[in-house]
C-alpha cells in the first residue's frame, strides 16, 4: 500500500476526523496491520496528532501494530466454546506451534489468537482459520486441520 493509497482511504471518508477508526480499519484491511509510516502519514494528512492515532490503534482489539502471519488462526473462546473445551485447543496450539496467544510463528505461517465469540456456538468449540470455520474440534482433529494450511 502506497502513500497514495492512504490518501484515497482518507478521501473516501471525506477527510472526516470522526471517521478515524474506519480509516484505520481500511488501512489494516489492506496491509493486514498498521505500519508506523502509514500512521505518521495519516497524522500529517489529517492534521491529527500521532499520539491520538496511536491511542486508538492500541485501544481497539481489531488493530495490530505488527505484521501478521500467512494464516490467521482464531480460537473462539466465547463462553459456549469455553465450556465445551476451547482451553484444550489453546493448549494444543501453544504446545504444537510453540507460540503464545497473539504471536506469529517463526516461519510466518500462523498468527495465533483467541477471539471472544464468533457466534457459531452450535459448532463449539470452533476455530476460524482465515475464513474457514472448523467446528466441534478435539485436540486430535485440530492437528489434522492445521496440516491443511501451508
Amino acid at each position, binding site marked *: 500500500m502506497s502513500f497514495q493509497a492512504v490518501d484515497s482511504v482518507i478521501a473516501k471518508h471525506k477527510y472526516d*476526523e*470522526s*471517521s*478515524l*477508526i*474506519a480509516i*484505520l*480499519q481500511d488501512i489494516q484491511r489492506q496491509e493486514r496491520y498498521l505500519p508506523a509510516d502509514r500512521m505518521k502519514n495519516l497524522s500529517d494528512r489529517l492534521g491529527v496528532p500521532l499520539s491520538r492515532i496511536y*491511542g*486508538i490503534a492500541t*485501544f*481497539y*482489539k*481489531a*488493530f495490530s501494530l505488527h505484521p501478521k502471519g500467512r494464516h490467521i488462526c482464531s480460537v473462539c*473462546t*466465547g*463462553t*459456549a466454546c*469455553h*465450556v*465445551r*473445551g476451547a482451553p*484444550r485447543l489453546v*493448549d*494444543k496450539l501453544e*504446545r504444537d506451534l510453540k507460540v503464545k496467544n497473539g504471536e506469529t510463528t517463526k516461519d510466518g505461517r500462523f498468527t495465533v489468537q483467541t*477471539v*471472544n*465469540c*464468533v*457466534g*457459531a*456456538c*452450535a*459448532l*463449539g468449540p*470452533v476455530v476460524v482459520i482465515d475464513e474457514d*470455520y472448523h*467446528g466441534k474440534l*478435539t*485436540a*486430535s482433529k485440530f492437528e489434522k486441520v492445521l496440516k491443511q494450511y501451508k
Partner: protein
Amino acid sequence: MSISGFQVPAPRQQLRSTADLTALAGRIAASRDPRKPVLIVCGGTGCRAYKCNEIIDALRAELAARNLASRFDVRVTGCHGFCEKGPLMIVMPQGLFYQRIAMADVPKIVEKTLQGNEIIDSLLYRDPQTGEKVVREGDIPFYAKQMQAIFHANRFMDPTRIEDYFAIGGYQALAKVLSTMKPPDVIQMIKKSGLRGRGGGGFPAGVKWETAAYAEGEERFVICNGDEGDPGAYMDRSLMEGNPHSVIEGMIVGAYAIGSHQGFIYVRDEYPLAVMHLGIALDQAREYGLLGRNILGSGYNLNIRIVRGGGAFVCGESTALMASIEGRPGEPRAKYIHTVEKGLWNQPSCLNNVETWANVPLIVNKGIEWYTSIGTGDVTTDPWGGSKGTKVFSLVGKINNTGLVEVPMGITLREIIFDIGGGIPKGRKFKAVQTGGPSGGCIPESLLDMPVDFDELTRVGAMMGSGGMIVMDNRTCMVDVAAYFIKFLQEESCGKCVPCREGLRQMGEILNRVCRGKGVKGDIELLEELSQTVLSASLCALGGSAPNPVLTTIRYFRDEYEAHIKQRTCPAGACKELVSYSIDAAKCTGCQVCVRNCPQDCIAGKKKEPHVIDMAKCVKCGSCEEVCKFDAVVVR
C-alpha cells in the same frame, strides 16, 4: 422478466405518500404466486459456517441443469434459529423441513422432492424423545414451544431485497405513524406498551424516548447499538443479517418520535455479513424515499449511517459507544448527565439495542393490547411494572439444541432448556445456566422453575443482559467459569477507573490461585469484599456488574470453591492442575484408540487388555477422554 429464475426488480422509484407504499406492496403481492414452490435456505453466519453457500450454489446449478430454474425459486434468508441442525432448508408451499443437508443430498432433493413429490426420510428431523421423524418445521419441539414474533419474518425474505419486506407488510408501521400520529402519540404508545431495552438494563424505551424528545439541544440523534460483544450471544447479529429493515423501520419511527434527523447504527466489524446487509438495506430504503428528505411526503427528514466498531467490548456501553462514533477511544464517562440529554457531540441521543428497535414496528402494527398480552406484570400505569413482549435468547453451551429461541417473557428456564433446548447432551446432569453475558450470573438447578423476565433475573443475582444463555453441566467447574468471566472483563476493561482495572485484576489472581489448588483460607471472603468495592465504585456498568459471576457462583456453588481450597480438588474435573487421568479397567475394552491419539505416548497397553496412563508424562490434554468411546477415561 426473468433471468435464470430470478425476478429482475423494476427500477426503484421514490414513494411520495403512504398510498404509494400501499400500492407498491399490493403490486408486489399480486405479482407473486403463493403456490409457486420456494426452497428456503438459511444463509445466516451460523449456517455459512456449515458451508451452506456451497449447497446453495449446487442447488441453483442443479435446478439450471434440469431446466427447472423458472419453476422453483431459491430464497436465501437470514437465520431461522435452529443452528444445531444446519444447513437448513424449508420446502414451500408444503412446509417440509430438511436439516443437516450435505452436498450429496442436493441432487436427491431436486429429483425426489421437487420432481417426484417425495419426502426424503433421512433429511427429516428425528425427535430424540419419541424417535419419530417430524415432517413440518412447526411440529418440531424446538419450534413448537417458541413464540417467534420478531424472528418469524426471517424465513419470508431475502434480506438483500426490500421488496420481500414490503410483501410481508414492511414499512406499514412507518406509514401509519407518519400519516396518522403526532410524535408525542408515538412516545405514549411505546411507553404504554411496556417495551423495555433488550440490550441489558431493561430501561423502559418510551421513557427514554420522552426524555430525549424534550431534552435541550441543537439537534438530536438516534443510535442503534449493534455492538453485540457478549460471548455466546448472537441474536442481534442474526436480526441485522436476516431482517435489517425491521431494525431500520423501528429507528425511523423512533427518530420521528423524538425529532431526530440523523441516526447511526454502530455494528461490530466482526459481523461482515450484518454490515453488508444493513448497508444494502439502507441504500434500498433511500432509493424508495423511506430515508432522506420528505419521507413518504410527510415533510420529515432522516438519514442513517453505519459506524463499524473496532472490537472493544466496552463500546457496548452507551457513553463509550458514543465516544467511538466520534472517532475516539471507547472510554466511558461518568453519567451524572445521561446520554439522552447530552450524548453524541453533547446532544440529546437516544440509544437502543437492535432487538429493541425491531420490536417497534410490531407494536405499531399489532397494537398495545396485543403486545401487553404477552409477558409478565402490569405496565398500564408504570412502564417498570413488568416485562412485556418476547425475548430472543441464544441458547448455547452444553445443550442439545443450540440455537436462537424467541419466547414470551415469563416462560420458565426449565421450559427453555429442556422443552425447547432438548436438555443436556451425553446424558449428563444439568448444573447451571449463565445469563446476561460476562456480567450476568449463574443460576442453579433449584431455580429452574422461575419465570424469565427482567426483574426475576435481577432478583436472583443474574440479569437479562442482551440474552445469552449458556448451559453448563456437571463437567463445568463453576470456579473456572467465574475465573473465565473475570479474565474476560479484565481484558476488556478500558482501564480508566481504578476499581474496575485493579479490582478485577486482583479478583482474577485470586480465582486463578483457587483453580490451581493454591487457594488459601479467607479467599472466598476476600473475593466477596473486593466484589462489593468494584460493584459500588466503578465508573460504568461494565465494572458495576463485573463481579456478578463471582458473587452468584459463590452464592449458589460455595461448596465447589471450598472443595478447591480445602480439599484441593475440582469436583467437576475441569481444573487441569487439580485432576489426574486414569483408565477404568472394568470399562476399557483395549481398543488402543487412546494409545494412538496420545500426543505424549504415555498410554500403554496391549490390544484387548486394559490400558494404563503414565501420569508422570501426561500433560492432561484430554485427547484420550475425547476419543474414548467407552467412557473408560476417568478424570478426577
